[in-house]
């Protein structure tokens, strides 16, 4: 894997690529922390923490913008090719996936207050365990990016199935609560959005994993099957 590790004749370009990688790692760490904060705030009804997550999202947005501008500048000034070019384009895409993960974390945090007004539902435990899977995927994909580890990246893609299964089972669980007692519909709807957001975080994490494959191998994976496992559940629920 000489590609982006090999030194350029231009030391300044090496320095710039290093900076790009560092900024991306920093952004990844922030997205990871934001999601952890959001889930914790939600599960513990911690309004203060939730508020902090919402405010800090601006920092991720700013980093995304910075990475975009920096990458555009690199393309214009260095006219990168081959692995350098793939790295820079991947960086732009990864940063926008991380930015979206930040938004989704913010969205989860934003529901904390609404949900804390209702008596707690046991679903919180399932949400927390789904979040654990998603968070460990993010961590793994960020490490895989740093190491340019395609094997680990492929593993992340495979784990997205787990997230989808969690989502489907949460969906079923929430449906039963709503059917049991219409007063549960309010909090359950919020929790459903939270679950959907986590499922989306899993998708963005998978996108990042695919970029790793692109940077290293220069190939794109075949189209992903992205079917929502809850689609099939809706008519079933109707029929009851």
């Amino acid at each position, binding site marked *: 894997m000489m590609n982006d590790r*090999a030194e*350029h004749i231009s030391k300044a370009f090496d320095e710039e690529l290093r900076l790009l990688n560092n900024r991306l790692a920093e952004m990844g760490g922030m997205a990871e922390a934001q999601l952890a904060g959001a889930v914790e705030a939600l599960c513990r009804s911690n309004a203060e923490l939730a508020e902090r997550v919402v405010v800090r999202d601006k920092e991720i947005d700013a980093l995304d913008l910075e990475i975009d501008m920096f990458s555009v500048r690199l393309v214009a000034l260095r*006219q990168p090719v081959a*692995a*350098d070019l793939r790295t820079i384009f991947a960086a732009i895409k990864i940063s926008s996936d991380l930015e979206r993960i930040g938004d989704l974390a913010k969205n989860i945090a934003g529901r904390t207050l609404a949900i804390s007004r209702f008596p707690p539902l046991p679903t919180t435990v399932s949400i927390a365990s789904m979040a654990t899977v998603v968070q460990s995927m993010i961590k793994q994909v960020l490490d895989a990016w740093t190491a340019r580890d395609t094997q680990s990246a492929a593993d992340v893609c495979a784990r997205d199935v787990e997230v989808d299964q969690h989502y489907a089972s949460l969906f079923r669980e929430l449906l039963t609560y709503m059917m049991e007692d219409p007063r549960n519909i309010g909090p359950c709807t919020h929790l459903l959005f939270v679950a959907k957001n986590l499922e989306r975080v899993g998708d963005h994490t998978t996108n990042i994993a695919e970029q790793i494959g692109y940077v290293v191998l220069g190939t794109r994976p075949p189209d992903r099957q992205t079917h929502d496992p809850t689609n099939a559940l809706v008519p079933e629920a109707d029929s009851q």
Partner: protein
Amino acid sequence: MTKLTARNVNVFYGDAHALKQVNLDIRQNEVTALIGPSGCGKSTFLRCLNRMNDLIEACRVEGNICLDGEDIYDPAVDLVYLRARIGMVFQKPNPFPKSVYDNVAYGPKIHGLASSRAEMDDIVTSSLERAGLFEEVKDRLGAPATGLSGGQQQRLCIARAIAVCPEIILMDEPCSALDPIATARIEALIDELKQNFTIVIVTHSMQQAARVSQRTAFFHLGDLVEVGDTDTVFTKPVDPRTESYISGHIG
């Protein structure tokens, strides 16, 4: 369709082995770019394609080069005719110390392509037009060509090359002495010319190779390391030496 095929081409300058076992197909109506570090043999290879190396005493060419399936090194080949079919444009614009008109008319005259002054006028005008120069020089066709700007002189050399209706145009760093605007004009011209000609261009500008060519061949120390679609060579080259060179890596 393949226009030129080079098979097992080896070139020696005295004892120095300048090109080693080169196999390359040049496709018709495409632009093929030859890239690689200085001294890797790009110009040597280009000169093999129209036997310009014959002019260099110490130079020995082995192997097989065919134009439309016919060996161009066959002793029966008429060199004047061969070079009419395969024209060349050099790094430094080299107009003859004659008028603009005479520069373009020179080739058609020696090949007897025009039977009257009017026919010659047509050839000169259309060649200058195709080279994108006519508008700029139409009022000074009788003026010395050496009075033109560098970019104009290079387009004049291209007009001179296409005046004899060659099938292939070889260009050795045709833009290296030109500013970005003149370069852009030549590149646009190359793009148009490929409809009627087959072009092989040597360039030190990776961006130029990427912009103008459909195929790129990378030479290194006399070896043809890699040849492929230009898109692929610049986004996902196969050989690490190609990657290193186009990315500006050390080593």
